């Protein structure tokens, strides 16, 4: 009798019961799955990854042929998702900050336009928007033969955007390397300058260093290498453009849709962040003689990001998760490749597990980075 009147023991019993029920539930599912797989002759395990994929992928960042393995195909999809996530988030943040600031602009028209933009975009499903953009790019744009030609060598048609690229030359890798080196070195120098300014109050201009390291250094390398300047232009072939490089309408539609959708949410977050900064900060900034944009740039935005970073993090994750809708418009992201793999091999469980693992990896990675950043910019002490 005593047992039932002890809340601690009761709690333990309750937990054991729930755990046992869950275990039985999962166990039954597992058992059923085993039975079903056996009766359907589907092998389990990840052995299929080494088999030949046998399907083509329209857009790849690494070499891929249909004779490659499933593993390689999934890697292609993974890299495509990574590319979409990085470019998309960068642009969605930039656009979101612009629209968010416009929303609070003293200019009535600007603020109304961004308000309507935000309302319309946020209240329509992303999938519908993606399909809309895709149909716009593949139906409304002219056919290949009558492609638009806004700049010399750039063609826009139903098959996407074709643009010229520089021909290969042995010096280009060195130019790229010196460019990257310049950026890294400039980063260190500006850090030194900032430290010095904080210690001595001495104001040193940063842009000459930027000019030398990021522009002149690669330029010098390029000149030393003989200044190669031959372009490969896209030319109209029999069915499509040949030569040059292209952006497919699938990629374009996915990017435009994701960026606009996420930017609308980011804009609301940025707006809330700016509004959270107290009015005194604006007044202090203008009494220091800063104009509207200077106050925003140096006083308001840095403080508003403290509030905005956590919700922005979840938007960054949302964009990556939403990029899985690429499967609906035929862009080969990870989910699309995994889906094809599942259909071909019948390895549904492994496929879904892989998808979940990849997205969990992305989630953990971005929240790790954003947490580090948030820690760096958050107030060190509350006075």
């Amino acid at each position, binding site marked *: 009798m005593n047992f039932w009147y002890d809340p601690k023991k009761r*709690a333990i019993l*309750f*937990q054991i019961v*729930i*755990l046992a029920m*869950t275990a039985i539930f999962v166990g039954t*599912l597992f058992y*059923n*799955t085993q*039975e*079903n*797989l056996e*009766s359907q002759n589907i092998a389990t395990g990840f052995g299929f990854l080494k088999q030949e994929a046998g399907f083509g992928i329209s857009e790849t960042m690494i070499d891929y042929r249909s004779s490659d393995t499933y593993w390689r195909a999934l890697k292609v999809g993974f890299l495509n998702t990574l590319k979409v996530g990085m470019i998309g988030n960068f642009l969605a943040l930039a656009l979101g900050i612009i629209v968010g600031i416009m929303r609070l*602009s*003293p*200019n*009535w*028209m*600007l603020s109304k*336009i961004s308000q309507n933009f935000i*309302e*319309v975009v*946020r*209240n*329509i*499903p*992303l*999938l*519908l*928007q993606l*399909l*809309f953009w895709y*149909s*716009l790019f593949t*139906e*409304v744009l002219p056919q290949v033969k009558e492609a638009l030609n806004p700049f010399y060598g750039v063609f826009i048609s139903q098959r996407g955007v074709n643009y010229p690229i520089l021909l290969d030359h042995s010096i280009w890798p060195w130019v790229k390397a010196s460019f990257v080196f310049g950026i890294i070195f400039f980063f260190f120098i500006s850090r030194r300058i900032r430290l010095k300014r904080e210690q001595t109050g001495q104001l040193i201009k940063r842009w000459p260093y930027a000019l030398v390291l990021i522009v002149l250094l690669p330029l010098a390398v390029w000149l030393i290498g003989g200044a190669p300047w031959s372009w490969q232009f896209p030319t109209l072939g029999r069915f499509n453009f040949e030569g040059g490089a292209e952006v497919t309408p699938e990629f374009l539609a996915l990017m435009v849709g994701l960026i606009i959708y996420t930017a609308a949410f980011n804009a609301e977050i940025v707006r809330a962040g700016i509004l959270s900064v107290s009015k005194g900060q604006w007044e202090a900034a203008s009494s220091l003689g800063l104009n509207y944009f200077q106050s925003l740039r140096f006083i308001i935005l840095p403080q508003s990001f403290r509030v905005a970073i956590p919700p922005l993090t979840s938007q960054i*994750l949302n964009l990556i*998760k*939403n990029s*899985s*809708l690429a*499967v*609906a418009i035929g862009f080969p992201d990870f*989910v699309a490749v995994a*889906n094809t793999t*599942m259909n071909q091999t019948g390895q*549904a*469980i492994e*496929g*879904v597990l892989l*998808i*979940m693992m990849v*997205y*969990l990896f992305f*989630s*953990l990675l971005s929240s790790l980075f954003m947490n580090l950043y948030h820690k760096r910019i958050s107030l060190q002490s509350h006075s």
Partner: protein
Amino acid sequence: MEEEIMKSKAPFENTAIWMKKNLFSTPVNTAISLIVICLLISFLGPFIQWLVFDSVGLGTAQDCREASGACLVFIKEKFDFIIFGFYPRTELWRPISSMILFLSFIWWSKEPKRWNKRLLWRWLKLILLIALLMRGGLFGIAPVSLDKWGGLPLTLLLSFFGLLFSYPIGILLALARRGNLPLIKIMSITYIELIRGVPMISLLFMASVMFPLFLPEGITFPKLLRAQIAIIMFMSAYMAEVVRGGLMAIDKGQYEAADALGLNYWQKQIKIILPQALKIVIPPTVNTSIGMFKDTSLVVIIALSDLLMTTKTALKDPKWLGFSVEAYLFVGLIYFVFCYSMSRYSNRLEREFSYGAHS
């Protein structure tokens, strides 16, 4: 003071003052206003031309192809199919009256003063009535099988039942996460974070390809039900986080007071904590519901005929190829009307409840 001055002047002068203040206050502002006006004219002009002046409201697909404007005939022609899917043409009065009943009842019960137990009973009766109307098979109404349901009724159905089930499950998950039973807490956290970490598509894939494997041989679920389960699983994790926000906002004193009254755990939660916590989070709950309403469109990917899928199917009709932009704008408008009114409603509730809140 300023408003009084505004009132005393002629109406046209008011406009001028307002424009001076809001559009042309500084040179920079004037420049921005002019640029924005130019951009608006150059974008909206052709769009209105396309949608209104050049559009084709009568005729055939051929007339549409020859004209340069929007093909409104397509929308007219496919309206029934886009909205109701494969539901038998002769029985359309049933989904129509169901939807009218459903929407007017939502309208009726949106006032917070009507929220009580009787409302729940009325909802239950309404659901039964709608189920009878849609499904048929009784009282001489012809039966219509589940796979014939489609379009807007299906979208509303998926969202409604998604909300109905994910809300209580979300509350339980949130309570488990906030509680002090370690095993249960870990299980709840794992579930919530796992679901929130993956895209909804992966759950829908799971529903369409893995659920059949989970069940013993011979037992099958219709695809609609499987998708509904996936949506519920997905949304409960998000609902749980919303409810958790509310639970965290409750003052510790409320818990202590409940304990001091000698209430046990469930009495404490149901009578003291949850009524306050759920009220605080009504606006985010509505926002999450909007998200869910939009997310039901993802069932397209596993080929369920919701509103978006019927649109896509209508676009595949060889007689009417190439009018996607019109179709998507039309469906976008439908989604917008629903989501926007929900978000206005959420704003209204937020205002009303923040007046009532103490401190």
